[in-house]
């Protein structure tokens, strides 16, 4: 059976989540029933987590940390997108360079990206810079590959069309190459956004003095499990909002594509 109505589906999903939270609350000593299947240190009740979120918010730290994390993620995203696109275009056109560098790019790319985090802390210290750089680094490769491979998909027939009409190289670039490349970049935007966020957070784990990632490791160190869950929840919400936003931008920008091409 399939659920056809959109509203129904949303209601059913919400109901399921609610039931799950109720059950969770029940087995973690909620509703005054004293049913305690898990230690609060291992799994705190949803109500406790919620209280922790509220406290976090009231202390003013929540806003401060969210801003720190998002600033790093945003800077990393922007720099990574432009850097990756520029480098992708460069290697897309410079054959010898591509031949020389492709193995290196593959090697660096296959390295789990977050493993460079400790190195970045050594290089750039505990501040914002390390976070931005890690975020940039993760985004860079996603965008680089999409641009680099995207350039190879430029339709030679379209180049001929513009040439025959007397278009200059600049016009060929503007009318054919740029739209092709941009469409590949937009297609990677969703991934890039979530990479940017995780890059920033991981850098905060490893060494920072603020941000959601920093606050989370700090809380874990103090065995403040509710705070850890609270921050995970907040990160989840932030991430969903950002990825949805990216999706929307992608859909708008790539309106001209047949639907099945939208992954």
């Amino acid at each position: 059976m399939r659920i056809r109505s959109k509203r129904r589906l949303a209601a059913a999903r919400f109901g399921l989540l609610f039931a799950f939270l109720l059950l969770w609350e029940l087995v973690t000593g909620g509703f005054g029933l004293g049913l305690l299947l898990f230690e609060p240190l291992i799994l705190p009740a949803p109500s406790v987590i919620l209280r922790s979120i509220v406290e976090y918010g009231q202390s003013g730290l929540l806003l401060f940390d969210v801003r720190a994390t998002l600033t790093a993620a945003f800077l990393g995203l922007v720099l990574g997108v432009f850097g990756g696109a520029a480098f992708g275009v460069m290697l897309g056109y410079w054959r010898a360079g591509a031949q020389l560098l492709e193995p290196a790019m593959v090697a660096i790319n296959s390295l789990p990206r977050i493993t460079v985090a400790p190195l970045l802390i050594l290089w750039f210290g505990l501040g914002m810079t390390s976070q931005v750089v890690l975020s940039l680094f993760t985004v860079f490769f996603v965008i680089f590959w999409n641009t680099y491979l995207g350039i190879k998909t430029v339709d030679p027939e379209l180049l001929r069309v513009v040439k025959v009409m007397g278009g200059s190289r600049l016009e060929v670039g503007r009318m054919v190459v740029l739209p092709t490349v941009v469409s590949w970049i937009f297609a990677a935007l969703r991934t890039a956004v979530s990479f940017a966020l995780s890059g920033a957070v991981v850098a905060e784990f490893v060494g920072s003095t603020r941000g959601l990632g920093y606050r989370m490791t700090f809380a874990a160190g103090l065995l403040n499990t509710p705070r850890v869950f609270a921050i995970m929840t907040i990160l989840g919400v932030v991430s969903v909002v950002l990825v949805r936003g990216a999706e929307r931008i992608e859909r708008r920008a790539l309106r001209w594509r047949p639907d099945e091409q939208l992954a």
Partner: protein
Amino acid sequence: MTSADNDTSAGPPRAAPDGRAVVIEELSIQFGGERGVLATDRVSFTAEPGELITIIGPSGCGKSTVLNAVASLVPEDSAEITGSIRVGDQRIDPYSSGKTAPGLGYVFQRDALMPWRTVSQNIGTGLEIRGLGRAEQRARIDELLGMVGLEAFGDYYPHQISGGMRQRTSLARTLAYDPDIILMDEPFGALDAQTRMSLQAQLIRIWHESQKTILFVTHDLAEAIALGTRVVSFSRQPGRIIQEFEVPFAQPRDPFALFGDHEFAEYQAEVWRQISGEFRGSGDEQEAGA
């Protein structure tokens, strides 16, 4: 090209320039060096100003390559070209390093529309390159949409319309910047029979009204005869010209009527007897040329 020729095109609805002549002399195109493939072998023919000439031949006979040479689209590192091409009094550089002659249009086999541009924006591509103002572009695009019957589809993207509509958009895009010479490389090849016929009819009408010079490549004999005032017939690869003939039906023709016409069928059968050897693949060229 002389002033006397201008008289024949008197009275078209739109003041269009007469097409220049395209003169091809002893054109040989060799791909892939000494031991490579000879695509065309000393091909010579002339498309007179304002003429609709069709070029027919089996696939791989180099007929498309000739068009590419006229449009300066042959990659310089892949081919050796001898002979000459002139458009009007301009000598053409056949290699893609050269600039395409101004006033030349090319309708490709695939519609080659930019998928990120709407129908209107695609039609306006050449106008944009020519630096026309927004209002002028708009007016010209609207005129073209009307000419090819796509008034209601200006804001559609190519993937949202049918193959026939895409090819009409492609034709309109070429007509938009008003080239006096149009090269067409099997533009209707991928379309179903009805759509094809209606596009052929539109092409004849547009050509007749504008008196452009059109070089139309096809491998379909019926199409070649229905459209062309003159037909140039190529041999199998390496392409040589085996026949050149005037088609005895008066222009402007109506393909819908023509394809049901007894005389047309007879004429087509007669021509086919003469050139079919080249299409058979094993054929005997003496017979085909007789």
